[in-house]
């Protein structure tokens, strides 16, 4: 299967482990992700205001690039890109006059975008579409019932119109990980917000969110937290380190992209991960389970 792929700004830098592991995993599953040509940043966060159309240009331009690729589905790994692209497409589908204004503004573009030509697909949805028997057959390493907390954060399940699964209790990640031999733990904080971009100006809020989310995962027996968003990853990983430095009794949990673990279980060389990008080193846990 072939699918267009939109990396977005952070997947080539901070979140490089997400990209390398996801692409290697997809290769094992016979999916070819073809990167768009000349893509730009999608703007990260969907603009919720009805009268500021400028902020819709970046995501719509990205969808124009996808339309020009000739393939009708667009894969995103980052949950923020997923959310923004999907909501912007819905926005112009529902507001014809605004759509025309946006297209007029980009009159140098050779292609117009109307709103429903491209299906934006998140990596978790794509993996979920793959037959579970095929997924199981690709798993070559025994996870030995590794206990994982699956963290969705906000943008994969909110708002409802773009949710990849149930808004309050999504199960996509759990199903994938169970098929791969892991044991997802009960985790009531899985869709709680990590304070997102507030980490820039109000780190104190983000820290307290991290503390609550990690406490919940740990109390429920998780050995690591798995997620699919580069901003959640940064917040939960980096801020745990800070919390631990401040108070050594705060016990940390490693944070990984779900594709990092799945790729290792599918036999991808664990060394493709750049472990220096982690603030909490995941190698001790992986080693304990014989996965390195």
């Amino acid at each position, binding site marked *: 299967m072939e699918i267009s792929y939109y990396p977005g700004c952070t997947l080539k830098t901070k979140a490089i482990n997400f990209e390398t592991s996801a692409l290697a995993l997809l290769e094992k599953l016979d999916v070819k992700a073809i990167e768009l040509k000349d893509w730009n940043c999608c703007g*990260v966060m969907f603009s919720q205001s*009805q009268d500021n159309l400028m*902020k819709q240009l970046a995501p719509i331009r990205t969808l124009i690039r996808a339309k020009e690729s000739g393939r009708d589905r667009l894969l995103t790994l980052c949950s923020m890109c997923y959310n923004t692209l999907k909501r912007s497409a819905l926005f112009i589908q529902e507001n014809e006059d605004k759509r025309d204004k946006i297209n007029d503004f980009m009159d140098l573009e050779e292609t117009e975008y109307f709103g429903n030509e491209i299906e934006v697909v998140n990596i978790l949805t794509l993996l979920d579409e793959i037959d579970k028997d095929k997924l199981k057959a690709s798993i070559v390493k025994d996870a030995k019932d590794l206990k994982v907390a699956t963290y969705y954060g906000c943008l994969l399940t909110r708002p409802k119109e773009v949710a990849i699964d149930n808004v309050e209790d999504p199960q996509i990640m759990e199903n994938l990980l169970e098929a791969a031999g892991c044991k997802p733990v009960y985790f009531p904080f899985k869709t709680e917000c990590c*304070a*997102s*971009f507030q980490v*820039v100006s109000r780190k104190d809020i983000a820290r307290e969110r991290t503390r609550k989310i990690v406490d919940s995962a740990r109390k429920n027996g998780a050995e690591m937290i798995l997620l699919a968003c*580069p901003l959640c990853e940064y917040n939960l990983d980096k801020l745990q380190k800070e919390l631990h430095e401040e108070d050594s009794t705060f016990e940390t949990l490693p944070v990984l992209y779900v594709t990092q673990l799945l790729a290792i279980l599918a036999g991808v060389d664990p060394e493709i991960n750049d472990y220096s990008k982690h603030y909490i080193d995941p190698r001790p846990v992986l080693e304990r389970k014989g996965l390195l």
Partner: protein
Amino acid sequence: MAISLNKEKLRTQECEKLQEVSGTNVYSCYQCGNCTAGCPCVDAMDIPPHEVIRLAQFGQIEKILDSNTMWICASCVTCSVRCPRSVDISGVMEALRQIALQNGNEDVTKLGELSSEELEELPQIAVISNFRKLTS
């Protein structure tokens, strides 16, 4: 907090604008408090989300704009998905930011206060979304 009201104060132009920019009807709210109960940032807010909506119903936009609430909101949309009356509280927060910024509110991004090491360490998506939400 005592607020004196009269007909003029109740239905202000500012409140009409707030509803237009957010695309939501604040009068649908029946004050159940669900939005505030699930808000991840409420502890740091001057006015909790359900009170923001109540003040908007009374045309008290100035009062809301004087608070820090919309700058603390993380746009997580938890409030909007849980509202039994389909009020898009998260959209109201965005509209409040837009109105404040269009009125010439000072820079709240605080990027200037971060050291170059901190800026370098933050992922692009953190910095860009901070800009997206806190500037116009």
